[in-house]
């Protein structure tokens, strides 16, 4: 869309360039306009023009604001790649210093012409007539205030904002989203900006390219296309966040004010017994709570140890710190003021976050729980509702109904985070190493953006990525480890089984005797057998092969099945596996997380393949021994040779068991629950 750039006077009497998406509404406010560009500019360019104008020190310099404004507009177009354009300015000629002629004195004919293209010429005249009669403005301003309240903590594209306003405001106001937004912006309660930040946005020495305000992607994720809404031939559109609506250079992004949060430091330090946590869970939750109260924050600040330095080293340290921060942000480390809750698979992470959520809600704060998968959201929602019956809960996922609900407790899939900005005091990120987060800077940006300035982030993971682990080791990110499962038995340690590579086995249609023996042993002890393979293409041939050898495994043919991501019967098969009508399930990494089958053993075929990294191996191994009835599942890495990933996965599991033993969390022999 296009916007009109105008100059008005701020409190100190200086000219300030602003943009208006609804000129008519801007006229209704009766603010004094010094001058404006006759031609509406594409929104991104309009914003850049404003910034260029406002960035100039000599706003009142010779030539007057109108000259400066047209100069800024030209510069903005030039920066966008269109050279040699001239701009007409409507309004008073002469300097800002001329107190007496500050009033808008655009002559009638010129105004007619200038406003005709904004579509509001006639009404603008009316507005003039109405200037004294503010009564008609009242309901509109009230609607604008209401809109501002609805938009708090959000960052919405025009279309989304329109949908929100239509739902939240009474009819005549909800149908005019642009007008309401313009008025709200006039009140200073909403910021209207281009969805893609223009170049001038960072006035630093090294100008960066365009940046998507919604997902943080740079110009390399954008495509320039001809755009009929702004008329430019090279209007940039962000492809990184296209799944949630189109963010483009000329698209309007309505940014609400930050949510008034709670002071996290004032959280009650005591942990109630209401949640029935085990000793290990409790100690981790307490540590997280201490972090939220700001007691553990000191460790991070001291990481560089530069506090005590004086003299010539100081600037050096400062520079190093800056460099370090930049490098860190480049490698997608944890956002500032974040805490890692590193809990082994099956430790009961969900229970552990309840006390944190409760504490923040009690203090009047707002909490977001973000999880990568929709089914987890759907599963967690009723549990949260039960645990926090008095708190308003909004459940957000693609196609959910409380899209615009303004709740203290929000449970969302990660992509929904893009629609928030400065909204939550506590952001809980579940499984940050899992699929959508993994290697996706967009979601990390979104998670950081959704948090309010004084908020905190708690990351939950069983297998934190290497970068984050490094930070924990160096003390930059505080961390609490939960090294034991809720049933207080050690994690099953994977054993190695030497088996030739999958491809060859499938080609020769043979199963090594050792593998058959091990599988048969698992079957005969009554376990459900997970067989993980690295590639989808291996699933079907392996199932066929296993079915052929079903007798020697001690199974019926119908008890063996395979599934993969695009399998239409996936949920049915998992359900059957859960109900023990299937005994052996061949699958890919899709089932590596979030599946809890009581009595299960895990076989990872082709464990040496690059598909299976350390995190994935630990997660798959974590499917075994999850229930208290059968805590000692068997895990086998079947591969022709050991890889680093296999070794470090075993190392990680062993280290957690050791830590659990050292802290005395493990159940002693003969001890009962």
């Amino acid at each position, binding site marked *: *869309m296009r916007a009109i750039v105008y100059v008005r006077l701020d409190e100190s009497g200086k000219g300030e360039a602003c943009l208006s998406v609804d000129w008519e509404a801007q006229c209704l406010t009766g603010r004094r306009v010094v001058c404006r560009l006759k031609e509406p500019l594409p929104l991104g360019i309009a914003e850049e023009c404003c910034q260029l104008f406002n960035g100039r020190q000599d706003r009142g310099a010779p030539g007057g604001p109108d000259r400066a404004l047209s100069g800024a507009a030209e510069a903005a177009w030039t920066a966008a790649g269109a050279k040699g354009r001239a701009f007409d300015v409507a309004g008073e000629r002469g300097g800002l210093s001329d107190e007496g002629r500050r009033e808008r004195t655009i002559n009638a004919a010129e105004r007619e012409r200038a406003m005709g293209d904004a579509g509001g010429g006639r009404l603008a005249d009316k507005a003039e007539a109405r200037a004294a009669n503010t009564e008609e403005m009242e309901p509109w301003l009230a609607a604008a205030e209401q809109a501002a309240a609805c938009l708090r903590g959000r960052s919405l594209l025009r279309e989304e904002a329109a949908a929100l306003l239509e739902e939240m405001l009474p009819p005549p106001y909800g149908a005019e989203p642009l007008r309401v937004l313009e008025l709200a912006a006039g009140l200073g309660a909403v910021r209207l900006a281009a969805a893609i930040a223009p170049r001038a946005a960072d006035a630093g020495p090294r100008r960066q390219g365009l940046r998507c305000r919604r997902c943080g992607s740079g110009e390399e994720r954008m*495509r320039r*296309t*001809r*755009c*009929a*809404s*702004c008329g430019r031939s090279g*209007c940039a*559109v962000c*492809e990184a966040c*296209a*799944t949630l*609506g*189109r963010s*483009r250079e000329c698209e309007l992004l309505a940014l609400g004010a930050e949510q008034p949060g709670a002071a996290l430091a004032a959280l009650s330090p005591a942990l109630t017994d209401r949640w029935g946590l085990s000793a290990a869970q409790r100690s981790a939750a307490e540590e997280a709570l201490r972090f939220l109260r700001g007691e553990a924050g000191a460790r991070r600040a001291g990481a560089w140890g530069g506090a005590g330095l004086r003299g010539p080293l100081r600037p050096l340290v400062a520079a190093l710190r800056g460099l370090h921060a930049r490098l860190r942000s480049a490698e997608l480390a944890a956002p500032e003021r974040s805490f890692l809750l590193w809990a082994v698979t099956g430790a009961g992470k969900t229970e552990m976050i309840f006390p944190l959520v409760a504490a923040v809600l009690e203090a009047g704060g707002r909490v977001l729980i973000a999880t990568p998968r929709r089914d987890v959201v759907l599963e967690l929602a009723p549990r949260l509702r039960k645990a926090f019956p008095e708190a308003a809960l909004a459940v957000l996922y693609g196609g959910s109904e409380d899209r615009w609900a303004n709740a203290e407790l929000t449970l969302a899939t990660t992509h929904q985070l893009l629609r928030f900005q400065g909204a939550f005091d506590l952001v809980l990120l579940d499984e940050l190493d899992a699929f959508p987060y993994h290697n996706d800077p967009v979601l990390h940006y979104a998670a950081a953006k959704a948090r309010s300035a004084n908020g905190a982030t708690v990351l939950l993971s069983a297998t934190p990525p290497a970068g984050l682990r490094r930070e924990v080791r160096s003390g930059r990110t505080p961390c609490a480890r939960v090294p034991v499962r809720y049933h207080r038995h050690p994690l099953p340690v994977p054993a190695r089984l030497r088996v030739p590579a999958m491809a060859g086995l499938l080609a020769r249609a043979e199963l090594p005797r050792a593998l058959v023996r091990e599988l048969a042993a698992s079957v005969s002890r009554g376990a459900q057998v997970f067989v993980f393979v690295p590639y989808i293409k291996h699933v079907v041939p392996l199932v066929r092969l296993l079915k052929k050898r079903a007798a020697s495994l001690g199974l019926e043919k119908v008890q063996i099945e395979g599934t993969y991501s695009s399998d239409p019967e996936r949920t049915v098969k998992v359900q059957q596996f859960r109900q023990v009508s299937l005994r052996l399930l061949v699958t890919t990494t899709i089932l590596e997380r979030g599946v809890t089958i009581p009595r299960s053993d895990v076989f990872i075929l082709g464990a040496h393949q690059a598909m299976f990294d350390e995190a994935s191996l630990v997660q798959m191994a974590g499917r075994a021994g999850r229930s208290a009835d059968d805590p000692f599942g068997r895990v086998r890495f079947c591969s022709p040779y050991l890889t680093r990933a296999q070794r470090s996965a075993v190392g990680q599991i062993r280290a957690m068991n050791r830590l659990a033993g050292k802290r005395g969390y493990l159940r002693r022999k003969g001890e009962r629950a």
Partner: protein
Amino acid sequence: MIGASKLLALLRPQGRNCLLCGQTFQVGGGRRAPIPIRNPAARKVLDEGFCAGCISRIPWIVTIACPICGRPERCGDCLRRRERPFVKCRGAVRYDDAMKEWLALYKYRGLERLEAAFAAMLAAAVEPLLGETRFDVVTSVPIAPLRLADRGFDQAERVARGMAVLYRLPYRPMLRRIRHTGKQSFKGRKDRIEDMKGTFAALSPPLALGHVSEALFSPTDPVRIMLVDDIYTTGATMTECSRALLAAYPNAEVYGALWARS
């Protein structure tokens, strides 16, 4: 340096990411579903744009049952129609669920990187028409100005332009909407036909089209217009647009090229 990087590219073929599913694949690797298009540029776009899985999901219309609208099944609509201002239509793909999803990605989500691929797919509808006659001009069904401002692009125009470049045909805008209609997807056949009446008009002044034929036996060669749209459902849009075109260009013949035929 350039030589070295070329050599490197030759030695280590770079995978491409599928425009739709994002999966990396090797161009020219593995078995792929056949593409019923002859134009090498169009084939290249599809070969390099989609992975084997996605390309196999395209339900190409290879055999047609209705010679008028190009439908792959027996077609009642064309029998029922009393007047038919266009000569014939051809569709490239069947409008099944997968294609519905793709079109939604392009049209509503604005995934403009699919544009070239859509234009290339349209070639499957254009080639049979080009095999029969020559064309003077390519044009497209315009979208409403309001929707154009909203969406930022006119999908039919973009696809038509892309296709016109592939076959070196001139593209000209020739139509405009004179009335805003609601969304077609929520209406039945009768409503659509009623609703479409008088929606379009040719842009004035009319283009100078056609050429003086030097051939001895065809002294009055009609102007042949290829009209492009994304979907053909009942043919109401096609009929209306053809009527508007015929009103402005009395000696014209209108042929339709559709990306999808539902």
